[in-house]
């Protein structure tokens, strides 16, 4: 299935791209992360930062969150607004 993955702030700069469209068989966020790393070995240290947050369909969630067709997944560092 097709999944849209977004990156923000320092992570976006580290990976060098704001988003990727991915054909994936991942059923959960953690599997998707694993596939992203396999396809882009250079991304490994950045995507394995322990403080990274993720959102599915614009809701914060943990990496065990299930994925479905058309989901929008986002990874980003801890937020610093306000």
């Amino acid at each position: 299935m097709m999944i849209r993955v977004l990156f923000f702030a320092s992570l976006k700069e580290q990976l060098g791209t704001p988003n990727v469209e991915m054909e994936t068989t991942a059923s959960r966020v953690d599997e998707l992360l694993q596939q992203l790393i396999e396809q882009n070995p250079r991304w490994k240290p950045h995507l394995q930062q322990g403080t990274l947050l993720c959102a599915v369909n614009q809701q914060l969630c943990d990496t065990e969150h299930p994925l479905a067709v058309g989901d929008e997944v986002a990874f980003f560092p801890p937020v610093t607004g306000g």
Partner: protein
Amino acid sequence: MAATTTIRIQEQDFSVADNYEQLRRSAAYGAVVTFTGLVRELVDAQLSGMFLEHYPGMTEKALQGISNEARQRWQLGPIQIIHRIGHLQLNDQIVFVGVAAKHRADAFAASMFLMDFLKTRAPFWKKEVTKEASYWVEAKESDQHAVQRWNDQK
């Protein structure tokens, strides 16, 4: 009368005076609390400006969700949340949270709650720009502690 929640994410500046006038307009709420955050000088380097990135769509949803939760915890009138994005200068206004309520304790608690959750759950990121360099601001542990107390109280 339904109390309104106004959420605005914008590049342009905002007027605390106008926001306050809107909050006080409703004759039912005798207490109005406002919080405004400003771009201030850094301790260890000369700040020349700031860049604020956000996650369009999710930001509005997150702030709406936090506001809804505040309404479940306290008796509130109008809520206003404004957050600026893009390039900001020293002394610029960044964020505004305003709450009207019948009782001052509710207005104060909700304003603090909204700010604590905004700081830890709303997808904004600050990049500080000094004369020498620019860098992403690190999240503060104190903000994590601040938000945790609301869960403890639940």
